[in-house]
């Protein structure tokens, strides 16, 4: 993996930096030049009190809690902002009366207006101010006057509450919003004792707002969601990996009894640093929402509860009958181990290669691209991304689709002027915050924009270390993936693929695509088949030899089967065998797929349907057997982030009594009298590791050329659309406060396009296809004419189900 060479780079760089040696409390300490005293002191084991100095924010010396004495300087100095100089002699509170007195004085000032709120404050029990009041503060107050009071708490968004009385003006929140997220909505107002964190006109609807709660050193910022729910000593904390997107954040899940109380970002410098997004932090109530409590089987058209043995028997019988004529749809949310179990079960137990992990719009090029460029590889990494001089984004909106990638890009833009170029229909909010250069692209015709990339952008990408990131949406633009790969070859830039869901990368690596075996092995390669067959303990001849069907092809095949059966029945002939006799479906949400109506019909028409689900869904509605499975807190597993980095996590609830998908599949294999597949996570991991990545050829056959740029007529436009980070995704259900911070749904068109259909700014624009109409307030946006942008899955705008359209399709515009 490239990380090794990186480590070497850092080691070399470290050797080159200038070191300085100072004395702290009588101990010599040598640190790189530029290290502030508070960090140098940490190295000697001396803890200086602090409020405003978390490591990842620039120093401001706002709170003065960290005052220390430096020999030769007239006054106590803030240790979080003064760099250790060569030969500097520093005395902290441990060895200096002056420093100790200064710190105690600051503490006393801080507590003058601080309310006696600890018993009703959510920070109580894990509050740095409480702790420092105990270590540094005066036990008795000398202040007898009225404290400053404010109405409390006030909502600065539906999720974030501000209690100004508790604020110690450390400005961590405002600096986070400004330096990290780039959404500066909260600011310090007024001065002196009356200084307070003020709120702007607009609510603080940042996708990263939850981080301010976590870094606030007091209980001034709290969340509506965790308000008064628990105390730190009630909670059991488990490190986990976020299951929402492919950024791969390390999280900490805090639970009490059998319920998750909150989630926080966990420190992982290589991935999410100390941050995460609000979806990962707040969207967990779905975990316990209307869960399936036991297996269901269909009897006389109705689902009824059944025992595990009965349900497994029925499922195994049905699937066994369909051996060779089954298909597996896994959705993009499985852990790597579960995905691997499906990949193996499909090829061995079901003897089919009809397996697809994508529950979204897909393109003809994609499977080849993933197999040849992505599966089983590693990198580019976050570190490479941060160091890249230039980054090209293709059909990818980092802030919406992979927020930690966005934060890393923003950091690089701020720190070393990284140049971001985005191939998109318009400069989004996120692109603007990255000061990105826009290469305008008509959705679906990104390949043309890449082919005609301005020379200066090419020059940028030719700088060593540049990165090209393609989003999963690039798959729907014919030729775009090929164009991006060619561009990477020509310029030498690293190429990265960023899916939206946490499980997609792991599913690609473990072979949940037609024609792709685990570790990036092409199914059509006999050597690759032999490797896999020997790991699985089957004969190489038993594995399917030709690539199977993807999701749209499966849906089409079921429809064709129905038509054949019907015409055979009309003619009085014997019906020929079906192409697809059974479907095995993991967590797939029909409305994620364009033309979800066709998928729903297929689910209804397929002769036998087994659904492994956590809660009732449109799939379980049609299923013949429903087998309930575990959610992430109830199982261990691994998500593979977009880099290809494994993010293993442990089970949160030790007493969970549900089965993960892999275990249910192993049980099914038992019922089918097949050689038992590994059923627990360590065994699955071991098998995946022993298979490893494919070392042979990775062909990418079939070059799908770019299609012509669509040419919408008058009153028409090309549809542009992507999913917003916070939308009506089912994993965000049950969290109304988070839902309140969603962006308002608007339709975006250029001024000329709006004028063309006579809709003034702010009025409602209707966007329609033959299937339906979405009407939204229009926001005139700087973008090419003849394009309309809609949020893909927001409450007021559900492109897949209402319009049944994909980006790149032509839609009609009108005035509502």
């Amino acid at each position: 993996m490239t990380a090794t060479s990186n480590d070497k780079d850092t080691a070399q760089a470290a050797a080159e930096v200038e070191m300085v040696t100072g004395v702290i409390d009588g101990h010599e300490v040598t640190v790189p030049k530029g290290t502030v005293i508070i960090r140098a002191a940490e190295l000697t084991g001396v803890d200086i009190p602090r409020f405003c100095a978390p490591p990842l924010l620039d120093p401001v010396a706002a709170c003065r809690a960290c005052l220390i004495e430096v020999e030769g300087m007239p006054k106590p100095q803030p240790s979080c902002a003064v760099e250790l100089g060569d030969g500097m002699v520093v005395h902290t509170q441990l060895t200096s009366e002056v420093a100790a007195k200064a710190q105690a004085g600051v503490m006393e000032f801080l507590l003058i207006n601080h309310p006696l709120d600890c018993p009703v404050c959510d920070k109580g029990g894990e509050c740095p101010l409480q702790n420092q009041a105990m270590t540094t503060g005066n036990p008795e107050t000398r202040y007898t006057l009225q404290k400053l009071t404010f109405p409390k708490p006030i909502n600065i968004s539906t999720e974030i509450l501000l209690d100004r009385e508790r604020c110690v003006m450390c400005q961590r929140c405002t600096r986070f919003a400004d330096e990290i997220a780039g959404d500066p909505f909260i600011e310090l107002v007024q001065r002196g004792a009356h200084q307070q964190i003020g709120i702007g006109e607009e609510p603080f609807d940042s996708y990263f707002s939850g981080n301010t709660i976590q870094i606030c050193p007091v209980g001034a910022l709290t969340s509506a969601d965790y308000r008064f729910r628990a105390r730190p000593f009630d909670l059991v904390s488990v490190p986990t990996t976020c299951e929402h997107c492919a950024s791969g954040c390390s999280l900490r899940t805090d639970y009490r009894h059998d319920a998750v109380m909150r989630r926080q970002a966990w420190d992982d410098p290589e991935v999410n640093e100390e941050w995460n997004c609000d979806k990962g932090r707040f969207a967990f109530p779905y975990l316990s929402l209307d869960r399936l409590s036991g297996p269901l089987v269909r009897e006389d058209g109705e689902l009824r509860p059944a025992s595990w043995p009965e349900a497994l028997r029925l499922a195994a019988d049905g699937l066994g009958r369909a051996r060779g004529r089954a298909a597996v749809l896994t959705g993009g949310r499985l852990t790597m181990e579960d995905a691997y179990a499906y990949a193996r079960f499909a090829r061995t137990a079901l003897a089919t290669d009809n397996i697809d992990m994508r529950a979204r719009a897909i393109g003809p090029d994609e499977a080849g691209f993933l197999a040849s460029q992505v599966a089983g590889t590693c990198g580019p990494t976050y570190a490479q991304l941060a160091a890249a001089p230039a980054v090209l984004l293709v059909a990818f909106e980092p802030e919406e689709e992979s927020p930690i990638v966005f934060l890393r890009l923003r950091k690089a833009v701020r720190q070393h002027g990284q140049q971001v170029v985005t191939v998109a229909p318009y400069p989004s909010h996120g692109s603007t915050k990255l000061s990105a250069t826009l290469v305008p692209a008509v959705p679906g015709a990104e390949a043309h924009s890449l082919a005609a990339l301005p020379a200066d952008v090419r020059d940028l990408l030719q700088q060593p270390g540049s990165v090209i990131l393609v989003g999963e949406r690039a798959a729907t633009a014919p030729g775009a993936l090929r164009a991006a790969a060619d561009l990477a070859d020509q310029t030498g830039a690293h190429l990265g693929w960023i899916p939206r869901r946490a499980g997609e990368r792991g599913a690609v690596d473990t072979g949940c695509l037609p024609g792709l075996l685990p570790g990036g092995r092409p199914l059509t390669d006999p050597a690759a088949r032999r490797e896999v067959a020997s790991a699985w303990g089957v004969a190489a001849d038993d594995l399917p030899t030709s690539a199977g069907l993807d999701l749209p092809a499966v849906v089409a095949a079921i429809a064709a089967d129905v038509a054949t059966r019907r015409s055979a029945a009309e003619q009085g002939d014997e019906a020929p065998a079906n192409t697809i006799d059974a479907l095995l479906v993991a967590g797939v949400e029909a409305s994620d797929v364009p033309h979800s109506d066709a998928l729903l019909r297929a689910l209804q028409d397929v002769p036998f349907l087994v659904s492994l689900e956590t809660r009732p869904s449109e799939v379980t509605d049609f299923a013949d057997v429903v087998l309930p499975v575990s959610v992430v807190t109830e199982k261990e597993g691994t998500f593979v982030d977009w880099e290809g980095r494994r993010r293993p996590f442990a089970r949160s609830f030790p007493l969970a009594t549900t089965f993960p998908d892999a275990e249910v599949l192993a049980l099914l294999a038992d019922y089918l009298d097949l050689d038992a597949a590994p059923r627990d996570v360590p065994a699955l991991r071991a098998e995946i590791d022993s298979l490893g990545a494919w070392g042979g050829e990775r062909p990418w056959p079939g070059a799908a050329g770019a299609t012509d740029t669509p040419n919408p007529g008058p009153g028409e436009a090309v549809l542009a659309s992507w999913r917003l980070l916070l939308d009506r995704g089912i994993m965000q259900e049950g969290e109304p406060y988070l839902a309140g911070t969603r962006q308002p749904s608007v339709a975006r068109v250029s001024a000329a396009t709006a004028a063309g259909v006579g809709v003034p700014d702010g009025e409602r624009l209707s966007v329609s296809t033959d299937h339906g109409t979405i009407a939204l307030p229009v926001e005139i946006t700087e973008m090419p004419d003849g394009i309309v942008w809609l949020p893909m899955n927001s409450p007021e705008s559900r492109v897949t189900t209402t319009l049944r359209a994909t980006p790149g399709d032509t839609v009609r515009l009108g005035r509502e």
Partner: protein
Amino acid sequence: MPELPPALSGFWVTFRTQFQKVNTEQYPEQKDKFPPKPRFHGRHQLNRWADGLEKCVGCELCAWACPADAIYVQGADNSEAQRFSPGERYGRVYQINYLRCIFCGLCIEACPTRALTMTHEYELADNGREKVIFEKQDLLAPLREGMVPPPHAMVAGMDSHDYYMGKVTGATEQQREEVQHEEAQREEARRQDQGAAQ
């Protein structure tokens, strides 16, 4: 007195004791004659403010202090519609498990609002685990003269500080009316439910 043989000296003790004052307290017959000492640690009580609002703010400090892990608390938000205590927070769930409690009284010392005190009640034995886990309604102090049962608003014009300063001396007419009105509405809803059921 001559030295008795050891076998008989035991009988002598028994014989002599028959004529001394009896120390045994007869329970339960005589329990009223021997009330516990003033600082006896008996069953806990969750106290109320003079207007009936609860003093407990659901802070869990008692649970934190408890060496026997006998207390379970869940806090919740007072809303305009449903107020149980002055201020922002109240104890929604409050349980003490008397199979665990060792009556040390550390919880009483920890309580910042004097919500939790101990009574003189000591007859807590029972024949089932669930019967000796006392819930909030079992622990709440009875409504005294001048109190109305929460949920209800604070005394008009007062805030939580005024409660702590002892400025509230009893439920006001307005609070009484509010509680009666709520009760009447609940009664009405019940009647309608029954009507609908029939």
